[in-house]
């Protein structure tokens, strides 16, 4: 596969080892703008670790990550969030004691301007001062973001809006996953990484989620998706990448990959079907 000129994200030889285990082994990947690629693979294949490497939560032992042509290997997650990379977490990491509104507002953190003047050195102190004084510009910005959050939450119908002031720990599992996605959307991402967004959801909820992802894709968002539910993967993906024991063992359109003997073997070899819920080991 050649280097895409309009490639949004490109990984080359990305590798991460934990002691003797190579969790991510020389992965190459190119994701074009507006494309949706799914990553599948049995438990422990290294999918989440790959996400961690892309989003800066972990550093690779070798290889590079380029985002819109820039080398972003090893940059901090804060920086990458500011660059427009948003992700959700496999096990759901909402801020338990924050309300739904506040959770999603955190997603918009990188977009705060009025309260976070880009002044070097004393910037943080100004931020503290502005937060306490709250001039009208700051108030207006906060107001605007709150309206925006309501609009984002409205995408989930009546699931979240009535609970907007409830703390996240009181939500159902599926609703917490939704809050995570809403939070990611509030960042106005250019690249969205979803780690098993439908884990723990029933078929109806899964269908809703699938529709939402399809809608995001239709709007032109570039998405990297980890998903075990193959049906959803087939429907949504432009391409599918299969990982096993850290390596990319197959890549291509959904149907091609599905019938690839290596893929079948990888799944069978691990005694897993790929559609089961896998929540235990992370």
């Amino acid at each position, binding site marked *: 596969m050649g280097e895409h000129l309009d490639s949004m994200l490109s990984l080359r030889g990305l590798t991460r080892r934990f*002691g003797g285990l190579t969790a991510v082994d020389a992965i190459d990947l190119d994701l074009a703008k507006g494309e949706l690629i799914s990553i599948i693979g049995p438990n422990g294949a290294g999918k*989440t670790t790959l996400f*961690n490497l892309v*989003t*800066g*939560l*972990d*550093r690779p032992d070798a290889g590079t990550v380029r985002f819109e042509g820039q080398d972003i290997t090893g940059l*901090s*997650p*804060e920086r990458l*969030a*500011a660059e427009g990379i*948003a*992700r959700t*977490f*496999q*096990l*759901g*990491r*909402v*801020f*338990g*004691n*924050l309300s739904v509104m*506040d*959770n999603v*507002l*955190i*997603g918009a*953190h*990188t977009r*705060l301007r009025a*309260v976070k003047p880009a002044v070097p050195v004393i910037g*943080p*102190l100004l*931020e*503290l001062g502005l*937060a*306490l004084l*709250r001039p009208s510009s700051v108030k207006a910005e*906060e107001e605007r973001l709150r309206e925006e959050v309501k609009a984002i939450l409205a995408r989930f119908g009546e699931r979240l809006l009535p609970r907007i002031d409830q*703390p996240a*720990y*009181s939500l159902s599992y599926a609703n917490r996953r939704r809050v995570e996605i809403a*939070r990611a959307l509030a*960042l106005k991402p250019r690249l969205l990484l979803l780690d098993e967004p439908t884990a723990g959801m029933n078929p109806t909820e899964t269908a809703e989620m699938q529709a939402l992802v399809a809608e995001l894709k239709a709007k032109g968002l570039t998405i990297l998706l980890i998903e075990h539910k193959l049906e959803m993967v087939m429907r949504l993906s432009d391409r599918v990448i299969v990982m096993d024991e850290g390596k990319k063992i197959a890549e291509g359109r959904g149907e091609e990959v599905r019938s690839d003997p290596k893929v079948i073997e990888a799944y069978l070899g691990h005694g897993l079907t790929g559609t089961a819920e896998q929540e*235990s080991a*992370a």
Partner: protein
Amino acid sequence: MSSWLDYTINGLIVGNVYALVAVGLALIFGVSRLINFAQGSIYLVGAYIGWVAVVQLHTPLPLTIIVVAAAAALVGLIIERFGLRPLQNSVRIAPLLATIGISFVLDQLVMLTFSPNPRALPSQLPDVRFQLGGGTIGPLDLLIAGVGITSALLLFVFLRYSKLGWAVRAASQDRDAAMQMGVDVNRVNQAVFGIAAALGGVSGMLVGMYYNQIDTAMSLQATLKGVVAEVVGGAGNVPGAVIGSLLLGLVESYGVAVFGTSYRNLFAFLLLVVVLVLRPNGLFASARQAPPEPLTGTFIAPSRPVRIPRWALAVAAAGFAILPLFPVSFYVLQTLINAWLLGMLALSLTLVAGTIGQVSLGHAALLAIGAYTSALLSLALSVPVGLAVIGGGLMSAALGTLLISPSFRLRGHYVSIATLAIGEIVSLVILNWESVTRGPIGISGIPPLSLFGYDLISPSSVYWFSLAVIVVLALLQGRLLTSHLGRSFRAIRDDDIAARAYGLSLNRYKSLAFIFGGFAAGVSGGIAAHLYSYINHETFNTQQSILALTVVILGGLGNVVGAIVGSVALVGLPEVFRIAAEYRILIYGIVLLLLVRFRPQGLLGTI
């Protein structure tokens, strides 16, 4: 030079002594991921049981050891069963606080039973000395080394090769998985606490014999040094704990050699901070380890804070404001002044521990920085007192944040350990930096509070002044909490990884929290300095830090109103119960335990 040999030998000898505590701590940490602050208390209990056995029952040494080990193990089992097991599924901070509460209770029970006077605990070994370097060592040195190294080896072998040891390791790696695989985690915990406590008890007894002296102060010292050694060696790593202890002993000994005795503990705590910063998992752990994903923290108890209507708060504030107009005694006013001063510290701590989740055990250091700055500004530079107090607040904000910043990259209990160490370092620097702080002599003749040229001398005026300051600080903090910063702080507390993934820089926001909190604490220290007119390095001690933490937990983590209510309660109640003077700390420890167990979110709830 032969002296270096002696310093080395002496370092190893005292390192031996530290190892006895550190091994027990490491064992417990290995299984429960818990730094057991009660380990020193078990050590104390062991020493006193040893005293009863030797001095009153005249038991021979082997029997003494068995008696002490059995009794201490029993104490350990009780702690595990009734103090910690009920907290298994509660928030991460709960067991840490519980061990602090347990240590209060045990120390106090020992003190009440045996009186605080030191006692001699004669060694039961023959008094022969062997020449080693320029000094001598005795059989107890060998026995202590033997017990330390043998127990570390035995534990190592036990963990590696026995079935229960396998279960212990499994439980320490992944408690849930171990449970699924049929490991009885409770039994494992019991075994571990029993073994660690037996070891702790025997250590206390041996060390008591070594110095021919036991007293109730040995508990805290043992815990402190043990924790330092353990963390240096790599928490949970039993052989590492032994090596960490020897290293600590050597660093202290060489520190004494080069700089003099009064720098000794400074080196111990600096070693800890350096290790924590450079190798947070200890010297013998791999340097870089991303935390596995399911660290999603229930750091604090989920709760809905009690909402107190604004008018009620306004009425309460007004009520307190007009209090001096009624014929209340100065004693009541002074007690409330103390509550306001503690309240300012609690506001600071509830922000950093509650709102942003950095449980600081060294918060009194911020008081000290504020107090010394304000005192010196007004004395040496004749800055007006009102400004000097603000200067104290600013200095505490700046210097405090700078000092604490190395710990920003740490998580969970390590933050507490690092802040504890930083608190000790500040106090030791004050002790040793004589040209500025006047060392142990302290600063006297600090002018009284004054504002715009008017001295605030009467209790009512001091009362009004400190009430006004705390109300302003509380309002500001309330405003901060409702801003995007409050949201960001709480997000970092709830899940720092997710927070980073959304662009929140931990350094930036932790700094801002410490700057804001440091100011409040510094102002409190500054006011105290002018109120007392004399301060020295002991005025703001660890006890203050622990008291403030208890206030914060009582009131509810992050809860501004809770911090003030908690301060009034914890300053007021002991005054009310003065009659029960001897039992105050005991009661205080029990309250802490009950609170952690039954209302971990505090009276007014976490925000």
